[in-house]
């Protein structure tokens, strides 16, 4: 999908993205990064200037109605038909996605149950709370049981409880085999539910892949903390003299230190062996992990700003 442009602004540029089946893919980036444009191109709501989008092997631009069979979409800002009842709304989209007429009634009730709106089945949408409407929107998106769900900021504006319920629902759907493509500003959610991730800024994809791999690949340096059994060894001085070690901070009343090590696992192991051989009574070592949030802010500010 190499590009989509609006006016003079390049909203998504040279985008080459493949999301395997069964993944929960999180696309993150600041406002205006091109996330929504990307999602709209995937759903066929926008046509890329050049390149193509295919879902389940179906070209979205050439066979839009066929591609929609495999897609469920929820946009960030949306309304529902307030003059319909909850079941009528879900029923409308079940028909619009051309489900078997005989199966629609059962599926409508099943979907309403899955999003926890059984008690509101016959209520008018106008009377639902924000969280309920959000859940109904998701129900609409997966009523036709699509293999892929495309959700644009689904958790925005929800209270913590509703957000938690939403995450549980998405995980449940994913366990059932649904691929989920989600954009969000809530980075802790990405770590919690996403199996792969893409970081986007100014229309370009900075990093993309399985979450663990992205974290590992992006980790230029390791934050390591060493603890000694007793003070007496000049740990800070010894570390400062080692190649690849920087930012050494003594701690634990002379019985420990924190430092940054440039290198991979082998280099860490080598350094530890040397430390023990130098006579340091090492009793603990801890690598402090970088949260996705830190990684994201480092990438977005360091590489593109």
């Amino acid at each position: 999908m190499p590009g989509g442009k609006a006016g003079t602004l390049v909203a998504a540029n040279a985008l080459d993205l493949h999301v395997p089946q069964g993944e929960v893919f999180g696309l993150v980036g600041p406002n205006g990064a091109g996330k929504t444009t990307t999602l709209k191109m995937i759903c066929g709501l926008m046509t890329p200037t050049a390149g193509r989008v295919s879902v389940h092997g179906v070209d979205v631009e050439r066979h839009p109605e066929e591609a929609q069979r495999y897609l469920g979409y929820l946009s960030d800002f949306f309304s529902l038909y307030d003059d319909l009842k909850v079941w009528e709304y879900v029923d409308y989209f079940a028909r619009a996605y051309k489900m078997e007429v005989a199966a629609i009634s059962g599926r409508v009730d099943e979907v309403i149950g899955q999003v926890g709106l059984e008690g509101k089945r016959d209520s008018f949408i106008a009377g639902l709370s924000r969280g309920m409407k959000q859940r109904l929107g998701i129900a609409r998106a997966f009523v036709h049981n699509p293999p892929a769900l495309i959700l644009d900021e689904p958790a925005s504006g929800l209270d913590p409880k509703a957000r938690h319920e939403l995450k549980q629902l998405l995980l449940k759907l994913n366990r059932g085999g649904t691929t989920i493509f989600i954009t969000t500003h809530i980075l802790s959610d990405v770590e919690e539910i996403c199996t792969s991730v893409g970081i986007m800024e100014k229309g370009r994809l900075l990093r993309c892949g399985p979450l663990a791999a992205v974290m590992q690949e992006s980790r230029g340096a390791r934050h390591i903390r060493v603890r000694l059994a007793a003070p007496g060894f000049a740990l800070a001085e010894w570390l400062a003299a080692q190649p690849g070690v920087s930012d050494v901070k003594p701690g634990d009343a002379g019985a420990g230190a924190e430092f940054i090590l440039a290198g991979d696992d082998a280099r860490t192991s080598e350094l530890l062996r040397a430390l023990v051989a130098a006579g340091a009574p090492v009793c603990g070592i801890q690598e402090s992990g970088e949260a996705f949030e830190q990684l994201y802010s480092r990438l977005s500010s360091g590489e593109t700003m």
Partner: protein
Amino acid sequence: MIPLFSNPEFIRNCRAQLRPGRLLATLVTVALLSITIGYAIHAGDDDGRGEWAKTLLVTSLSFQLVVLGLAGGLACGLSIYREREQNTFDFQRVTRMTPMELALGKLFGAPLLSYFITLCLMPAALVGAAVAHTPPSFFLTSMLFLILGCVVFHALGLLLSLFSPRGGTGVPGALLLLFLPVMAMTGVSESRSGVAADGPWAGIAFVMEGTWRTETAVDRSGALYTPSEWTDLIFGRPVHHVPVLLVLYATFLAWILLALVRNLKRDPVDFELYSPAQSVGLLCYLNFVTLAFYRAREWGPLGYLVPAQRATVFLLFLGMNLVLLFVLGMSLLHNREQSRRRVYERGVGKPDWIEAVWPGAYVLLAAVAVALLVITRFELAPQLPGTLDKGMAAFQVVFLVVALLRDLFYFQWMKLRRSRYPFVSAVIFLGVFYVCSGVLLSTLSGLGSRQMFLLSSVPIPWAVLGMDQQAWTEGGVLWFTILAAQLGLCAVFVMLHRRQLAEMAPSAPSAPAEAEAA
């Protein structure tokens, strides 16, 4: 395709609009109104000849027309616009409904409440028809006119709704403005054209004064004419007005639906009313209809209609087609996104000339097609009096088409410029240019009339419509110099357009990038 009664959009509208409580309230209100109006009409019938029944019938049909036409038209005019404002329209675009299914669901679904009110008014209309001994065929034909005419109006409302910009509130007003001429058209009687009343009100006229007979007569100049409004002349042959009107409604509905269906699920950036081939087809169709019904008549010195002069007919069709060609050309102009996509499709390198002269080729094709149609029609009708200098006529056509292309190339270039409202700027600049040219030329009226005529044709090309034989002969080779000047201006705008396209073209990959890709 899904049948209408299983169409999800139609069902949604049924559920939303036809709730039992609302239906009951509407039914009771309309019944009370019908009874009150019926009683008032009956009580006012003093002579006891049963005229009240006809009045009741016409009143009921008029109410039905206003409710279905105006209220239904407004419902359609707001339907897509409102969905876009509420961000619900995208969800319909990503469903598996085809554009035709979605369009039909909206066309018949959005005005459902108007249909219900029309149905509630039916008992009053039926009572009037029965008491007035109106033949059932007349009543049914009247209803057919009324419904089909309103459906055309509804489709137009949907199209306006689709093309109305977000945040704009002009759709209801535009529809109201449209409704008035549509209604007014019904009063037009056959004079110049061979077609009678053609608005939905024709249905009411038919139930009152219609006939199934076709009638023709010969006027004092020996030409065939139709004394009855229910007889049309197509290429000089009498045909009953009812099938003519039904065919006209159906074809116009088809054209509107075509535009609706090809754009309904598109990204608004890619909106294109018709494809170039369809636009040429529409232009030919409009000319065909005009030519079929056109009766070249004008008021003679003795106060009755006489055959029009050949030159008058030529100028009429030339003027009409220039307007249509301009509209066609404007509807084909590309915006930046469309141009960029085409440039990307053609790949790296300078944009080719075919793209740079857009939409010139289609406008020329349309001009040739229309010219052939018009020439064929009038060459086969040698009864037109007067003479027409073919050389001058050909020059006028070529000159005006080139001038039209000049303006279209200008608009196409301006539309690709980087500014907030490039097209609006282009319209304003051209408007200012024409106004200034007009003012300036009027102050130079001290020049001789021949020089003025030639001079004014450069900035204001349509001045050549007023060219006569003397001006043509006296101008001589100078006319071709002016034509060359217009062509030169066309070339300038094409070059500017090409430069804009070149800026959009994807740049060639650099050598290191190519190596990396390899």
